[in-house]
């Protein structure tokens, strides 16, 4: 594969899609040992040990039933048919057949129980695994989501978990029962004929050597196949999410090319897998024939010499078949094992992902039952990337019920201030206090429960408008919801939607405008009736008319709460008690509207630009 990174820009575009440009090469060898992975997988099966025990019993019985058949064959041959040929007596056959049928019936029952139990354990394990993965995603720091790739993360929870489920469900226990078959067969074979057994075993070492020999090749081939399918998903995800842009710019052809590239990589990887699997299959078949021939040759000479009977040879042939099957299975098992381990590694990698922002341990965790709303930023410095401070030595105290506006150019660090307050990130230096408590010591739930945030991107879920609004307060009544939506001016447009409050928000909320999304997100935050209300560009896409309604309603709402408002539209912030102007990670100036206008600094400059200049220009 030819991803070397670097090179000219044009060639890079041809060489590979962006998702492959980074880190792929490094991943070719596994970092975690199989032993560790297995240990952790076993932990997931342990809770089902009772069922496992029943299953083991069923399998043992099944194996024994299987082992008996060749022996019975030997008996029917040597003890019923051969004497019968001389005496003409067939009566022995009838009771013998009865036993065979009884065995078959028993085996059927065993099979049924076995299949169901195996599936039960495999699927239940994967259920737990998915549950844990999902839970992990709920506590993972936001940093991961800012960096991570949605497609890849999803692939771990879906595809990888699925592979693992197949492995745990169908393969692993089968191998155990086959092991029983192997040892049982060996025992019975030795008891029938010592020499013949030794001869039969001649080809076994080769049988075992073939998979070992191909081990590392198979491993990396499977891993490549896995990675390439994740690539397909990733490109697909991006194209489908960005389809509107793709079409608006008529980029269908180029996108088709990009997809063709990853699709082709996947095809190539899959064909390599196919080649190796077919080759393996052939190798095993040929070794197996050698075994058959040797047994036949030696067996016949032994019969001719009078050392064994034909019944014994036939029983041996049957045993060898039973013997070969587990080995063939082992080979298949090896494939699945490889795939499963690769999947398990990716799963546990996600589970082990370090959580940067950790909740304090339960013993010294502060639960804030009541909040006054005093916020203090104490000498805060923050860097997303080491050496590039986004906030520099910020000191700011916001009193309870104060209405503060953060103003400043894009990238000044306003949203970061809020991210630190909600503890989505921890400051590099300094601390944030709420009512004198370092947010570092407060439980996530009690910290965030007191805050209502309307974030910039106003993400909505694929659910009804009503459910979206009461997302933070599931017990809210329709009346409470309507009260809130009236305040933010959303009630009217919601009622105009095809199904009013029951209208489903589609993925990406494409069926309503951004302004409408913001109003719903606004209602959602207000419904919680939080002590601290944070509006991060909450109404940037709301039309001027609606904005007027909101401003009137807000006056009342913001009374008796601490509020932080980030807005570029200065008409929104001029009524704030205090305006904090942030520039390049530092507080440039502070004061109310009148003070700042008089001062003639950055704020008045911004304000004049927004309101005065057009008049001069026109």
């Amino acid at each position, binding site marked *: 594969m030819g991803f070397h990174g670097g090179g000219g820009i044009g060639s890079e575009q041809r060489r590979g899609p962006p998702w492959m440009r980074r880190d792929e090469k490094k991943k070719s060898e596994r970092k975690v040992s199989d032993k560790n992975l297995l240990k952790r997988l076993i932990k997931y099966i342990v809770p089902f040990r009772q069922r496992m025990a029943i299953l083991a019993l069923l399998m043992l019985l099944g194996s024994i039933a299987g082992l008996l058949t060749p022996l019975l064959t030997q008996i029917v041959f040597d003890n019923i048919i051969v004497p019968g040929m001389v005496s003409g007596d067939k009566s022995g056959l009838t009771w013998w057949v009865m036993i065979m049928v009884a065995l078959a019936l028993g085996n059927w029952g065993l099979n049924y129980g076995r299949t*169901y139990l195996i599936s039960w354990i495999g699927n239940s394990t994967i259920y737990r695994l998915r549950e844990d993965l999902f839970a992990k995603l709920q506590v993972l720091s936001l940093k991961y989501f800012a960096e991570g790739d949605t497609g890849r993360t999803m692939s771990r929870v879906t595809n990888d978990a699925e592979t693992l489920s197949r492995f745990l469900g169908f393969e692993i226990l089968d191998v155990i029962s086959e092991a029983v078959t192997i040892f049982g067969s060996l025992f019975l074979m030795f008891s029938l004929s010592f020499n013949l057994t030794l001869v039969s075993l001649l080809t076994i070492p080769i049988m075992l050597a073939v998979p070992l020999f191909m081990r590392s090749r198979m491993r990396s081939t499977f891993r490549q196949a896995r990675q390439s399918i994740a690539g397909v998903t990733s490109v697909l995800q991006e194209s489908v999410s960005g389809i509107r842009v793709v079409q608006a710019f008529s980029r269908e052809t180029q996108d088709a090319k990009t997809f063709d590239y990853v699709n082709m990589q996947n095809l190539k990887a899959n064909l390599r897998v196919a080649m190796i699997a077919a080759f393996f299959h052939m190798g095993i*078949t040929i070794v197996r024939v050698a075994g058959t021939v040797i047994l036949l040759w030696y067996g016949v000479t032994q019969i001719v010499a009078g050392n064994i009977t034909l019944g014994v040879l036939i029983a041996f042939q049957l045993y060898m078949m039973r013997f070969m099957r587990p080995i063939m299975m082992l080979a298949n098992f090896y494939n699945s094992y490889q795939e499963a381990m690769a999947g398990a590694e990716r799963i546990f990698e996600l589970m082990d992902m370090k959580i940067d922002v950790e909740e304090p341990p339960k013993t010294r965790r502060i639960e804030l039952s009541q909040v006054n709303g005093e916020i203090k930023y104490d000498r805060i410095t923050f860097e997303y990337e080491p050496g590039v401070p986004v906030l520099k030595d910020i000191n700011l105290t916001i009193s309870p019920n104060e209405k503060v506006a953060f103003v400043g150019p894009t990238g000044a660090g306003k949203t970061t201030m809020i991210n630190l307050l909600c503890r989505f990130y921890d400051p590099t230096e300094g601390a944030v206090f709420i009512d004198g408590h370092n947010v570092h010591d407060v439980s996530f739930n009690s910290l965030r429960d007191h805050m209502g945030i309307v974030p910039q991107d106003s993400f909505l879920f694929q659910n009804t408008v009503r459910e979206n609004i009461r997302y933070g307060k599931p017990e809210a009544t329709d009346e409470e919801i309507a009260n809130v939506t009236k305040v933010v001016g959303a009630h009217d447009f919601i009622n105009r939607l095809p199904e009013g409050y029951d209208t489903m928000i589609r993925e990406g909320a494409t069926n309503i405008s951004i302004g409408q999304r913001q109003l719903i997100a606004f209602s959602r935050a207000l419904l919680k009736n939080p002590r601290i209300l944070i509006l991060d560009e909450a109404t940037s896409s709301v039309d001027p008319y609606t904005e007027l309604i909101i401003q009137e309603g807000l006056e009342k709402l913001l009374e008796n709460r601490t509020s932080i408002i980030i807005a570029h539209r200065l008409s929104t912030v001029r009524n704030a008690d205090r305006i904090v102007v942030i520039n390049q990670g530092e507080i440039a100036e502070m004061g109310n509207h009148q003070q700042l206008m008089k001062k003639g600094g950055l704020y008045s400059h911004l304000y004049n630009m927004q309101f005065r200049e057009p008049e001069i220009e026109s």
Partner: protein
Amino acid sequence: MGSFLRLMRYVAKYWHLFIVSFVLIIINSYLAFIPQLVMRDIFNALTPPFDSTSVLGMLPVACLTIIVASVLSGVFVFCRDYAMRYVSQRALYDLRKSTFDALLSKSFSFYDQSQTGDIISRTTSDIEQVSRMLSMWIPRIAGTISTIIVAGGILFSINYQMTIILLLQVPFVFLITNRYRKLSRPIFRKQRKIFGEITTFLQQNIVGTRVVRIFTQENYEKGRFNDKNTRYLNQMLASAKLRGFYPTLNTLIMSVITAVLWWFGGGLVIDTFGTLMEFKWGDLVLFIQSMSRLTRPISFLSMSIRIYSQAMAASTRVFEVLDAEVDVKDKSDAFNLPSIKGEVKFEQVFFEYIEGKPVLKNINLTAEPGMTIAILGATGSGKSTFINLIPRFYDATSGRLLIDGYDIRDVTVKSVRKQIGIALQEVFLFARTIKENIAFGNPDVSMEEIIEAAKAAQAHDFIMSFPNGYETIVGERGVTLSGGQKQRITIARAILMDPKILILDDTTSFVDTETEHHIQKALETLLKNRTTFVITQRVSTIKNADKIIVLENGEIIESGSHEELIVKNGIYTKIYSTQFAPQEELTTQEIKLR
């Protein structure tokens, strides 16, 4: 069956490989039978009283025959396996490709109604399931049928009664398998559906993490996920129950038939011993071994049926995507829109997403080339829909839209969109370099042009502040940009198209005042000679527009220049005076009084 035939069309391209595989399969079913026939001869020769030297003399030739036949068979199996997997992987590739192409051609209305996660699972796991069926099911079915015929024929010539008993298994297996298929199919369909739901939910959760955390709904999310997870588990177990019962019932039938073979065949050996029509024990062993040889292919058959039903359910879902209707498409006689001057004319345009709920009503408007039209209106008044009609993201329900006098439904979609630059309200950047994002509509432009566009959109400076400049990768795997930065890249992307018609849908809402001011200035020169449609909250843009239209409930209620509208003293005047005019002199009370 419809899905199946359609699938076959994807495979038909590789018919020569198919024929090769089938020939190999048929030859192989004979080759694979040879060792047993050879052993039968030897065992028969061992019938007492036997001649030691002649038996031992048979051995070398017999063993050589077995070896040659088996090695050949191994090679053939290799070729067959690879050929079939090749075909199925190719088909997978083709199917995915055509699905992706179909996705690219679907209209906006398709995406309005579908969910990304669902589309993705159809295009990945569903298609893979189909491919698995192709690589496993087809060779196995062919192999089984060919084995039954070849082996059946040879066995029939040895003893017809035993052959009939042996083949009794086939109808049983078919009946059982058929029943199994009928019962399992709906379950598999449900499984796929729930799995699609899980994927969608997961994606939502990942994309919306921030909201989940802000509202401390982690437990609620977990609950909902586990609910789906549980439903999936239940469906998996339901299918396991069926799988435990029916296929193993097949095994039971086969064991019983084997027992009958022993009983009948054993009797035959005893009865015919020493007669002319002797049925020797070697024959008996051959039949018993043939039984176990057939057991595996036939039980594969039942497994294949399971794969078949899963694959059919999956392929139906794939074809649903392929077949989804494309509303906006080129007419058969569509021609390319020639280079335009930029006149846009709405003639009695009505539009409804849902029948009976018009979003736009009787829109009449002419935008002369070079004009700037500002669109103002409350949330949901139809502003975005209005501009979505110009690049034909949707077609008007009635009325027509003309560009330079051409009805846009008469020309090719591509030629229209190529001449329109759009910065959508929905900011979407690809996880690629900034440079690639800006040059998205125009990948062949020079670096200078890209920088020029970025400068006009006030994006150059912040781009250069990244260590990798224009080569910085944005999005999930790269640098996270703020809303305003994203919007500026979007604007640069639209500008770079050098379009005659430019559409800016609320593209500066996240941009700070100072930057917007600069963008505004740069746009002033850029907008010359371009027809521009702007939706914005910004006063300066609105005031400077040649024409302002105010939309209310899908109708144009006011239209004219700033000066014309201000005199009218209508809605525009009210909005202007409360929101746009400088008013530090006024108190909140006074604002309310207006």
